[in-house]
């Protein structure tokens, strides 16, 4: 293979993939070997299939697999369909722009905090039942209902979908302008077609191709999530990802080989599902053409609009309520059923957290800022290279490998963190800040790429040419024109990367070797206890930093472009 390195940018995609995939590959090797019985540290030095037979014969395996498939596929499908309904029923509208403005605070809520908030709303002793109890005297004790953590996984599906819809919406919002969705809708309407017709037959087919990767990330997340599944999922058995985590944490060290086989199974399962989704695309496309030719689009009343309203309401209600409850718990001294509000309030927990948090706070800030900055630099480098190739008349071949960057999002963390850690120890890098930053970047870069690539590719290059022809300086046209016009999406991508870094738990604890405490490691530690008040305070801290950064990402461009009307809105 000939690699043209005529331009310094040419190497960036290769370098990026090399740097950010190394941990994944090293990690996977370190996981797949134990899955085949190779784990010399505990005296297993002969390849065998025993871990696999132990996995398949484990009493909880079939049930866990069923739960994983039902909840994972269910949540991803529910999120995708809900997002589609929101778009059909409400894009563009006042409701939608309101939803759009709420996305930042919604996305900055930590997963676990949201799940805990949901649980406190829905459990039989939760807020909703307490409100009912105000009206009924038959609810003096929590009723024996099964409204959360149900054995079928419904509460897990709903919680996951609610967490994923905002992410999918954000991804769609970045892409819709490039598809000229607004204009397509006008055109379809003027030809006498409904909005539904325009979306289903004209916009979605193109949109899906663009959000395929984010959707796969959602799929992978739903199938491999641990923290939310522990809070909202079924327990007998739990989902496969939770079981795998248990095996990796089992006191019987040989169980780690079963965990490794489980992680490998989960990865293969995920690959199969994604391959299946890809294979289905063609038949579905043919089905679409068939339906279009036969005019089978149907003429049901426009139920998408009320549906979109309902979904927006449910979404905003649960997020607002989860946030409110977290806030109240943080200020509570004692709060029992059936009190709608705490019987006593106190600032003790907030005060206590302040004495504990100064070190973790700085470490978190430094890590998140550096990883978001580095990620932006790398991603912009890759995307600029793409622009260069486009106008150099070359095929954008090198760029294709960037798809590999998404690999870390598609692989369960627990499946490669352990192997990566072993390798880091071997080269003497474990417990260093650089290694920790590296491990964060593995997850931050793909999300930044996901958020930034759409708007960046959509940039109208004529601005750059004009600037170039006026100044004659490439750097000038890049720094003073392109980056400024793209300021909003870049800051948004920064905020996303920042939030992703803050959320990292396993890499921080393993790669950091316990040397670095962050808000998240402290929050997770306290979440293993029983004190909801302190858990709430920690969740608020965890949420505060991304919220500030998301707010800045919104406010800075608004201020910078306050005199420029065309720049005041990036999304039509």
């Amino acid at each position, binding site marked *: 293979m000939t690699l043209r390195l005529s331009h310094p940018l040419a190497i960036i995609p290769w370098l990026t993939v090399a740097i950010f995939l190394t941990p994944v590959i090293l990690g996977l090797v370190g996981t797949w070997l134990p899955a085949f019985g190779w784990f010399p540290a505990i005296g297993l030095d002969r390849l065998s299939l025993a871990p696999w037979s132990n996995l398949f014969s484990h009493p909880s395996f079939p049930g866990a697999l069923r739960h994983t498939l039902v909840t994972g596929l269910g949540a991803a499908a529910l999120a995708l369909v809900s997002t589609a309904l929101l778009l059909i029923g409400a894009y563009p509208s006042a409701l939608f722009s309101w939803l759009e403005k709420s996305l930042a605070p919604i996305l900055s809520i930590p997963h676990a905090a949201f799940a805990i908030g949901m649980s406190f709303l829905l459990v039989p002793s939760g807020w909703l039942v307490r409100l009912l109890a105000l009206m009924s005297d038959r609810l003096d004790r929590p009723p024996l209902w099964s409204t959360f953590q149900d054995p079928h996984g419904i509460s897990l599906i709903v919680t996951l979908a609610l967490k994923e819809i905002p992410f999918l919406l954000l991804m769609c919002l970045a892409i819709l302008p490039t598809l000229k969705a607004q204009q397509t809708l006008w055109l379809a309407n003027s030809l006498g077609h409904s909005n539904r017709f325009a979306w289903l037959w004209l916009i979605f087919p193109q949109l899906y191709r663009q959000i395929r990767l984010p959707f796969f990330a959602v799929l992978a997340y739903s199938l491999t999530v641990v923290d939310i599944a522990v809070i909202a999922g079924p327990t007998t058995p739990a989902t496969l990802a939770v079981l795998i985590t248990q095996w990796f944490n089992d006191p019987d*060290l040989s169980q*780690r080989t079963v965990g490794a086989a489980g992680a490998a199974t989960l990865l293969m399962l995920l690959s199969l599902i994604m391959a299946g989704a890809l294979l289905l695309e063609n038949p579905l496309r043919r089905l679409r053409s068939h339906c279009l030719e036969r005019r089978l689009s149907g003429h049901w009343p426009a139920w998408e609009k009320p549906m979109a309203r309902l979904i927006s309401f449910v979404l905003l209600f649960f997020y607002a309520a989860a946030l409110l409850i977290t806030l109240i718990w943080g200020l509570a001294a004692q709060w029992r059923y059936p009190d709608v509000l705490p019987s006593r309030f106190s600032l003790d927990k907030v005060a206590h957290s302040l004495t504990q948090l100064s070190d973790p706070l700085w470490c978190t800030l430094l890590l998140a800022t550096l990883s978001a900055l580095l990620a932006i630099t790398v991603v912009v480098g890759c995307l600029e290279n793409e622009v260069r190739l486009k106008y150099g008349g070359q095929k954008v071949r090198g760029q294709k490998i960037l798809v590999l960057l998404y690999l870390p999002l598609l692989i369960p963390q627990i499946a490669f963190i352990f192997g990566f850690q072993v390798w880091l120890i071997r080269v003497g890098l474990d417990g260093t800040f650089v290694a920790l930053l590296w491990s964060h970047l593995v997850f931050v870069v793909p999300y930044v790429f996901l958020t930034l690539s759409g708007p960046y590719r959509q940039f109208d290059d004529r601005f750059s040419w004009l600037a170039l022809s006026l100044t004659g300086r490439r750097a000038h046209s890049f720094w003073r024109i392109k980056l400024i016009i793209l300021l909003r999406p870049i800051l948004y991508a920064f905020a996303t990367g920042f939030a992703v870094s803050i959320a990292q738990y396993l890499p921080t604890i393993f790669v950091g070797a316990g040397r670095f405490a962050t808000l998240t490691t402290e929050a997770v530690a306290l979440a293993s206890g029983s004190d909801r008040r302190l858990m709430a305070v920690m969740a608020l801290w965890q949420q505060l930093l991304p919220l500030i950064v998301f707010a800045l990402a919104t406010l800075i461009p608004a201020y910078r472009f306050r005199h420029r009307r065309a720049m005041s809105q990036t999304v039509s």
Partner: protein
Amino acid sequence: MIQRTPFRLLATTLLSTVTLVGAADWQDISNQAKGQTVYFHAWGGDEHINSYIQWAGERVQEDYGVTVKHVKNVAPNAVNQVLSEKAAGKQTGGAVDLIWINGENFANMKANDLLYGAFTQDLPNYRLVDTEHKPTTLFDFTTPVDNLEAPWGMAQLVFMYDSQYVAQAPTSAQELLTFAQNNPGRFTYPALPAFHGTTFVKQILSELTEQNPALYAPVALADFDAITASLWQYLDALHPLMWQEGKTFTDGAPRMKQLLNDGEIAISLSFNPFDASNAIANGDLPDTIRTYIHRSGTIGNTHFVTIPYNASNPQGAMVFANFLMSPEAQARKANTTVWGDPTVLAMAKLSNAQRKAFTDLPMGVATLSNEQLAKVLLEPHASWVAAIEQAWLSRYSQ
């Protein structure tokens, strides 16, 4: 770990002469410890325990110049860290200096040569430990401790009930079943293999079989199905009467404490006899909560701290472990307004002043007396755990 074995052999042979050489050794250890930073990996889920560890760290800084960093970790993560280092061949300079460890993890670390070696015989305060009357300080989870870990506190399975809803606490397995029949949905226990769940099931098994001697020998020697038949019969009857009809379980005792506060359940369990008093004192639970144990006694054991094989600062870790066993630290730990964790020390071995620090402690409204807590059941042999867990999962978690 081969290179460590001679050391351990040496340490064991020296055990008998320890009183002679101990003092000199201790001087060496504390001299070397000066200036070391000990990374203490300990569960960080309770702010009171965290604060206590912070206090203890400040005290050893004052007395010995040892810095303690509390890594708020969960035990399996610390074990995983050590295991990764073993896998990478890192024989010295490990990231973990001291681990707060449970019996299962200890047994497995010991079996896989992941521990530093015998050290408690060199610690002056170890001599104050009540090894005579608290046999679990010598056998952790039925595994011989062999001076590989330092006793830190005593644990015993206790039940907590809400006296607002429960007039008479059930004090046996059978009475608990009757309670569940009269109050469906108001009791649960954590799903196995969570530690508290396993302990509860072992407790029921001990009670129903009236502590069948076979439980205290390797499970391979016993007729497992015959001995556990009554257990499964009992659980089959209990589960439909439990919280969420036994279809959903909690993941551990902390979550059960929340359910108790919420009123979803009326009986919960804990492994710390002072837990309820402590939780009432800090507002985690209402003051209507009381503690009880079953008439036949309940399973009890000891929790420990240990040093991994490749610790960077083993001397510092020993100095800290020694301080944690000191009368000063143990008395403070037993105070329910600080932590409320029973001491491992023998009162008879203490000076009058030291003893007074313990007798002066406030009792707490929900604490049982020492007499009430006197009946301690031994853990079944460690090999029973895996068999019980496997059978439980086959029956109830498919």
